């Protein structure tokens, strides 16, 4: 069934987001959610604020998934 495949794919994707390690991976890439915002702006640098907006929301989404899906 195709719906089952969709379910598997979404489950695996959510799992892939949930197992991202905060200190070892996200902070190194600069996607950590508890970074001071100055770092992100420094990373985003001269670009306009809209790209940072998308990235902000993506980081928010990742941290939300990690908070919701992890049991620790």
């Amino acid at each position: 069934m195709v719906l089952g495949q969709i379910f598997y794919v979404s489950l695996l994707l959510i799992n892939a987001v949930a197992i991202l390690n905060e200190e070892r991976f996200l902070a190194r890439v600069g996607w950590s959610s508890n970074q001071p915002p100055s770092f992100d702006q420094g990373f985003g640098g001269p670009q306009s604020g809209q790209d940072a907006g998308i990235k902000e929301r993506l980081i928010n989404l990742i941290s939300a998934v990690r908070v919701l899906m992890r049991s620790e």
Partner: protein
Amino acid sequence: MAPQPSSVDTSTSEPHLSTARPRAGAGAPSVIQGYQQGGYQRFSSPPIQENVVPSIHQYAPSTSPTASYAVPPPTTAGQSFYGAHPSHLSGSLAGAPSQPSSQAGGWSGGFGGGFGLGSQGMINDATAQMGVQFGRHVAQVGGEYVERNFNAILPLPVVKHYFNVSNSYVLHKLRLVLFPWRHKPWSRAHRHSSNGGSYSGSGRETPSGKSAGAEGYLPPRDDVNSPDLYIPVMSFVTYILLTSMIYGLESRFHPEILGLTASRALAIILVELSAVKLGTYLLNIQGDHTMIDLLAYSGYKFVGTLITLSVGLLNFGGLVYWSVFLYCFAANAFFLLRSLRYVILPDPSSPSSVTITHAQRSRRIQFLFSIAVAQIILGWALIVGIFHPPSPSLKST
């Protein structure tokens, strides 16, 4: 069952005799009681004998074995004594027409006919009454619970708002989906702005208007640009049926195809819906749209799919088929481009609009355009593989 004459009894019960003999030793008194009652009551009405026979069966081994032995000889001939009673029993007990042995026949008839319908049926009536009442109560409470929670997940009045269509709306909307090029105003009409008072007067509009009062949009009956769910749902069902019909015409139909097609189409809809939802989240789009709006807009692609499939059914050849497909989904993409514009780029006059900068606006327009282009891919995914390769889809392309 009508009792047979005794001469026929002796002859027809000879096969029963052989099977009855080995078992008759232990159960003889009860059998005789059964025979006695059967002989006595074989012309009476069935309900009485069904009530009487089990009780006799219960008391027979202990109370009067001698009386039961004493009675039969005057009524029947001696050698047909054992041979006669199976058919008498089968005739009088009327429970099971085919009884292999007298013992089993008497007991099974007594339990099956007498106990089931008579005394135990009365007890069952009382318990069944309680059970029915309890079940009704449970169903009522459960129904209320389900209704309450179901309303929280899928608010029924809001959904009813999307089915509030009329014939002229459906025709207009179908024309709009297929020929969207010359349509002029694409914005949805607000309820409070123009005709709020006039429509709240009629009874049919009032509940939907109240439910959609937060939205403030007119129902689809009064506004061609409003999304509805009637056309998507109907075209979804028709898509499944038409697909199965195509499979059936090529004699490849299997009942699983219904479920597979539905699941596939639902999966495509879900993928598009989640992609659009993710995009609106990432782009921080806060229009006054709902999930049902997006569902309705993604469901309109079935109309183009249906047109394409019916053209493919007419066997015009691959070129016509694919050009019709391209036209339909270009039209659908244009329709979505125009219709989703109010979702993604809110009207400045709309009360819930936020001021957006230029870069944000260009990014949103790119997102809108990618949704429109994705329609063609999703539509291709809807119709691919339906026609068998030797039929028009791949013949002359």
